[in-house]
């Protein structure tokens, strides 16, 4: 069935990676010094790869669109990073992390990649601690853990609600060290606009200096994209304003297949939309579900305040529907359950598109423990709440402050109101076991690739994957390719392929500036987001998807004839940057709908209303859809489907159950 080769090494699942590492061809130190690698993106996946490759001796150029590599959106990850350390002695193991990730991904991820991820997970924690990343500790001085959704062990390492920040600053400092030594050339405020291919291989990029507007050509023996996810196709998401698909999309147009674009993660715990002015959505970390209980009133259209609704009139619907995992079911399950309650008329708040996340019970429980520690027996409720609030504050203080700042409500006193929002994209550029795309010499790491999370990513696994790819996987696998490139001299950038790629990029910029239409870039972006959210969001159906495809095509035509981009190309021009990104989002949006329409089943984050169990759970079709859908770009925004069959030899495929 597969018509593409994923290059998975032969042998037992548990020994594939070890064997690969000991047999992969090496590049000797003097050759490494002449081999150049371009890394686009400076988040966890990009910065870690850039630093590690430079440490190994390669010449590295790293690009980011922000003013500093430290600002990549990995920085905003809150809750934690998984690793199979079994420090809590709760039965964790490499196999369990592997199993949880495959199951969490609804059996749509590649076994070999996921097992490798689980294997290297423990090294990541060791590496980060050695770098001075201040992960949370217990009083004994050892590392602390907490629980995340979709697992029954405590394997999540964290640094308050700023885990992504601390891990990224670790990778950033490793990167800056190499920059200081002259081994990495860093290009900040640069945006990649084209991949340059020579004789079928990726040999460089075209980038725009965002300050001067100048177009630059950069050669590399290989190019690595660690450019993040495409959640901003929905306009409103938890992504940063600048997060975009452009680098990945340009690569796609040069022959890199785009895999499973319809797998989008809608995160259950975000602050609800407050009005039309909204520019982005803010996540409240999944870690809050350790201590927060989710509920709605049992009565429809109940307009009482949360505090006035007695215990027996509250419906803790996750605990009711999924007793085994309760509030810690995976994200896709929790999001759909919230939507189901709100659609049925039980939502809370002014918009009725929200549910409660309530910390009261656990605040009191913590307070009782604290009271007991300080020798207070039979503490009254007030004492419990006071002492418990201090514990909650230490665990989640920054998140509670953020919530209060955005909503104007005090979450220590009233339950948070939350609603699902677009957060992460499991789909991305198709890569083989070596993280190489279908274009030789072009690699893709982190959220930008499709490889490890199947149809749904478990919490605290994005940080794990980004750093696994950058620190421990790519630096090995890229050697398999580069060892064959040692005789290739740096190709001068006046090569016709560079000239042609630059012309393509400049052509698009000039076209955008010269349309001089009447509507702003944001206008089109919002309309695209609306179509995507309504018809390719938390639930999709055939009719809606067909409509969406037509609407997006019409929107694309309108965009290219009526967008207004002020200013000129040769200056700092954020509207021009946005215009290029939105143009790519519009094409991607169409592909996402085509992919969702093709996949006649429900799995993970892809929920087709036509395919559900009697209880409203996702209904997979393993017979017909146990494959990765890898799309090839064809002239005129058309797409051809290639399939990579998924074989499960080490795990029993089953209906996913968290009951």
């Amino acid at each position: 069935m597969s018509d593409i080769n994923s290059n998975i090494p032969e042998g037992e699942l548990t020994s594939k990676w070890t064997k690969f590492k000991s047999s992969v061809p090496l590049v000797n130190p003097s050759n490494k010094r002449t081999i150049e690698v371009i890394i686009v993106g400076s988040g966890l996946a990009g910065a870690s790869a850039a630093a590690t490759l430079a440490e190994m001796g390669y010449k590295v150029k790293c690009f980011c669109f922000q003013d500093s590599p430290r600002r990549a959106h990995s920085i905003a990850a809150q809750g934690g990073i998984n690793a199979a350390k079994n420090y809590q002695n709760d039965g964790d193991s490499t196999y369990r992390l592997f199993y949880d990730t495959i199951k969490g991904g609804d059996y749509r991820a590649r076994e070999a990649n996921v097992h490798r991820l689980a294997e290297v997970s423990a090294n990541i924690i060791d590496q980060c601690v050695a770098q001075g990343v201040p992960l949370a500790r217990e009083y004994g001085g050892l590392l602390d853990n907490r629980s995340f959704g979709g697992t029954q062990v405590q394997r999540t390492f964290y640094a308050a609600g700023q885990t992504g920040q601390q891990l990224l600053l670790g990778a950033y400092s490793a990167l800056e060290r190499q920059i200081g030594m002259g081994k990495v050339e860093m290009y900040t405020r640069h945006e990649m606009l084209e991949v340059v291919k020579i004789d079928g291989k990726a040999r460089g990029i075209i980038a725009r200096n965002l300050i001067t507007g100048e177009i630059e050509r950069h050669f590399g023996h290989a190019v690595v994209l660690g450019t993040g996810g495409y959640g901003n196709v929905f306009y409103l998401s938890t992504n940063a304003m600048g997060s975009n698909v452009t680098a990945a999309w340009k690569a796609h147009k040069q022959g890199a297949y785009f895999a499973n674009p319809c797998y989008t993660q809608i995160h259950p715990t975000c602050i609800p939309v407050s009005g039309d002015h909204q520019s982005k959505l803010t996540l409240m970390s999944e870690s809050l579900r350790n201590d927060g209980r989710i509920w709605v009133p049992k009565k429809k259209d109940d307009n009482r305040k949360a505090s006035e609704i007695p215990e027996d009139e509250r419906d803790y619907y996750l605990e009711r529907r999924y007793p085994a995992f309760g509030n810690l079911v995976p994200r896709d399950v929790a999001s759909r359950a919230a939507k189901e309650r709100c659609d049925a008329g039980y939502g809370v708040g002014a918009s009725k598109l929200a549910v409660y996340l309530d910390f009261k019970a656990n605040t009191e429980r913590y307070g009782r423990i604290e009271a007991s520690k300080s020798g207070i027996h039979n503490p009254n409720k007030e004492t419990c709440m006071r002492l418990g609030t201090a514990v909650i504050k230490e665990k989640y203080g920054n998140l509670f402050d953020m919530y209060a700042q955005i909503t104007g409500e005090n979450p220590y006193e009233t339950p948070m109101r939350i609603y699902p929002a677009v957060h992460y994209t499991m789909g991305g550029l198709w890569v083989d076991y070596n993280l190489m795309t279908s274009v030789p010499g072009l690699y893709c790491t982190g959220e930008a690739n499709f490889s490890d999370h199947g149809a749904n990513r478990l919490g605290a696994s994005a940080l794990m994957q980004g750093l696994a790819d950058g620190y421990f996987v790519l630096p090995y696998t890229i050697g398999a390719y580069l060892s064959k490139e040692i005789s290739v001299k740096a190709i001068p950038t006046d090569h016709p392929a560079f000239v042609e790629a630059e012309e393509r990029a400049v052509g698009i910029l000039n076209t955008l500036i010269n349309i001089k239409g009447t509507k702003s870039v944001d206008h089109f972006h919002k309309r695209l987001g609306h179509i995507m959210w309504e018809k390719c969001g938390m639930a999709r159906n055939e009719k809606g998807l067909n409509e969406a495809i037509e609407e997006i095509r019409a929107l694309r035509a309108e965009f290219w004839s009526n967008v207004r981009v002020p200013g000129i190309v040769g200056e700092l021009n954020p509207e021009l940057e946005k215009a290029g990104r939105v143009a790519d989002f519009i094409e991607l949006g169409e592909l996402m709908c085509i992919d969702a329409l093709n996949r006649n089943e429900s799995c993970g984050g892809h929920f087709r209303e036509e395919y559900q169990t009697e209880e409203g759970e996702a209904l997979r079709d393993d017979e017909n859809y146990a494959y990765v859908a890898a799309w090839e770009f064809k002239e005129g925004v058309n797409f051809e489907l290639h399939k990579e069959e998924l074989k499960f030899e080490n795990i029993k495929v089953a209906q996913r159950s968290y009951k």
Partner: protein
Amino acid sequence: MSTGNMNLTLKVWRQKNNNTKGALVDYKLAGISPDMSFLEMFDVLNEDLITKGEEPVVFDHDCREGICGMCSMFINGRPHGPKDLVTTCQLHMRSFKDGDTIVVEPWRAAAFPVVKDLTVDRSAFDRVIAAGGFISVNTGNAQDANNLPIPKMQADAAFEAAACIGCGACVATCKNASAMLFVSAKISQLALLPQGQPERYRRVQSMVAQMDAEGFGNCTNTGACEAECPKGISLENIARMNRDFASAKFISEETV
């Protein structure tokens, strides 16, 4: 598009690039909602300007949740505006009143040249980190993380210093445009941890030397940096850095 009823007068710094002079320009805005963030209010302004065929205001921003450190507006004489412990992107219009006049300028410091309008160049911070803001450990050499227990108090203190987002508010608010709070936060984080000890005194000297070379001013203990820091980074870090810097001169065998 907006749903509120606040009317505002903005005085915004407009400057084409680093080679031209800038000036404050007045804009009137109506229908602003108190639930909007400060940057969403600027989105409304820019949408207006684009519709009118004028150039939108360029400002830095990215995550809009207070952690990337990109946003950098000097609002009514204070970096990140009137509220304590928040960045510009987390500041909401409910912190202002209908009819207010709001003055918005870029960070001002010799080491942070203006790029355009409200956007400045903060790459000096990266160069300070590149001079020594790291632990020299290559990928793949680490021992098991729990082989090195670190007392919780110490780990927590290191974390508090590490919470710095590198936004530059400390520099912008300092009358000397000193970067000492930023630099000392990184030095403290690593000096408080056992992993940071081998390079401790070399680090403080390299980073301070780079800080001076970038043209940041010195510290005169005013404390404005701590007061304006959106992440509450403590002035104690500067004291710790000064102690380490002085100690380095006496005890370090390495010279930088």
